[in-house]
């Protein structure tokens, strides 16, 4: 399978990365090189094979469903590029 320039632009939109037409053209070629490389997987017979979900065979540990953290709003917002007290500030979302 290979991608065309409009597919690259659609995927970039999904990934929320702005790209120019020139860059979309470059990326089309780069992505097709990579997709061409991974195409060799078509040779592998995977009938009846379970997809891997964990490399280590053990039951994932679970913690008690209790509050064990919190009251650190200062820390949580400390690195925000724009904030107002304990709120993250973003451009207007709802008109």
């Amino acid at each position, binding site marked *: *399978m290979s*991608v065309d320039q409009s*597919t*690259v632009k659609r*995927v*970039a*939109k*999904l*990934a*929320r*990365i*702005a*790209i120019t037409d020139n860059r979309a053209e470059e*990326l089309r070629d*780069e*992505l097709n*090189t*990579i*997709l061409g*490389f*991974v*195409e*060799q*997987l078509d*040779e*592998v017979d*995977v009938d009846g*094979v*379970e*997809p*891997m*979900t*964990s*490399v*280590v065979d*053990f039951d*994932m*540990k*679970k*913690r008690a469903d209790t509050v064990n953290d919190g009251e*650190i709003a200062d*820390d*949580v*917002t*400390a*690195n*925000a*590029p*724009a904030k107002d007290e304990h709120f*993250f500030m*973003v*451009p*207007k*979302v709802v008109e």
Partner: protein
Amino acid sequence: MTDLTDLTLAQARKRLADKDVSASELTDAYLAAISERNGALNAYISVTEDIAREGAVASDKRIAEGTAGPLEGIPLGVKDLYATKGTHTQACSHILDGFKPPYESTVTQNLWDAGAVMLGKLNMDEFAMGSSNETSHYGPVVNPWQRDLMNVAVRSEGGDVGTIESPPKDDTPLVPGGSSGGSAAAVAARLCVAATASDTGGSIRQPAAFTGTVGVKPTYGRCSRWGMVAFASSLDQAGPIARTVEDAALMLNVMASPDAKDTTCVDRPVPDYTATIGDSIKGMTIGIPREYRIDGMAEEIDGLWSQGIAWLKDAGANIVDISLPHTKYALPAYYIVAPAEASSNLARYDGVRYGLRVDGSDITDMYEKTRAAGFGDEVQRRILIGTYVLSAGFYDAYYTKAQKVRTLIKHDFEMAYADGVDCILTPATPSAAFPIGDKEMAADPVKMYLNDVFTVTVNMAGLPGIAVPAGLSVEGLPLGLQLIGKPFEESDLFRVGSVIEANAGHFAP
């Protein structure tokens, strides 16, 4: 008196315990070395002088009081993807501009609890995506090794690591490998005793091989990933880069731990990894996988591998040929799984909660402009591949298929181990270090990806691996061998790795 920065971790520990040298003297020696040489190497992107000096003073106090930890007073470098409280933590990406975490990663906390001293944060490929340390926002790291036209092999016995001057050097700057290029270069250049690193497809073992250092990628789940900037969560694993096999074991002793904050981190006691070093390997079975003899493999890599086999055989190991039939599919499967997980993990960088923000006309425009400006080319490439393979209609054809292939890759290893193989010996890399700005690799991303052809299988199967320096190339550059072990049997790697080390000696630029 030898230069303090020439001491291995084991030697420095002894000198500190004997009160022959103070932690402050040791730290000052490293800070001086960094200020002298880091400008040329670009291994550190942030030097935490004050934290280092304060840490050393505290270590000296604990040594005096008799309460020293296992790494008391040992100056370490930390890869920039470990969250270190209040200090530079950006995974060498522009998108994390100015980020200073209000918390500490579990692995680094373990190190500080053991008394280690932080010298600073080390350069790396952006978000650990790269094999040459050229994708860093802070520019490439220069390998302290240069091609040696006279091909003077420097070898010293025992722990006395030294070097001799050899006449003409080719001063073309070479890459240190990646993504832990800063860690490997700093350890090789004596700008830290040892360093933390991380490995998703070979990011510890490949740079270790390129710099003549020892790199360990533990079993998935052995070290906590809490507080490490995530790249591909099912593959990422923390590990050390150090100058000797023993030093690497001393580091892993402390880095590894159970951790309630990481549900994939196993609740298993951590053994003393130094315990098996020097033990006889008589009767151990070492597998040699035929599929690793790839087309067009350089003669010197093949020769190095044969040399390694001979060393282990002479030491009493049984050498058996084995087959890992799905080896060639590991790299293509990796380039589906890793970008898919990365596209999901990196969705969090949106200019809202931390790091860079580029203003836009509305919130979507802000996201798109921020991510376009903040991510470098390689990271964007991988996010787009990941987004594509996970998008509607393609998920099964790519992602599910790759995860099935991964099951087969792991099964290959399980069969070998079930047949009685203890460890598997392979080359660590298909070549020695290459020049910065290599045109062929820059033009074709897949060429760069092939650097990880021998290491990536280990991540896909979640196994432990170690790269041990084993010789020099015809150009006088270090080359490494890789040992792959059974899950959670890192001790076997240190045991067999120490045999390679004893035969090959130590290598310093």
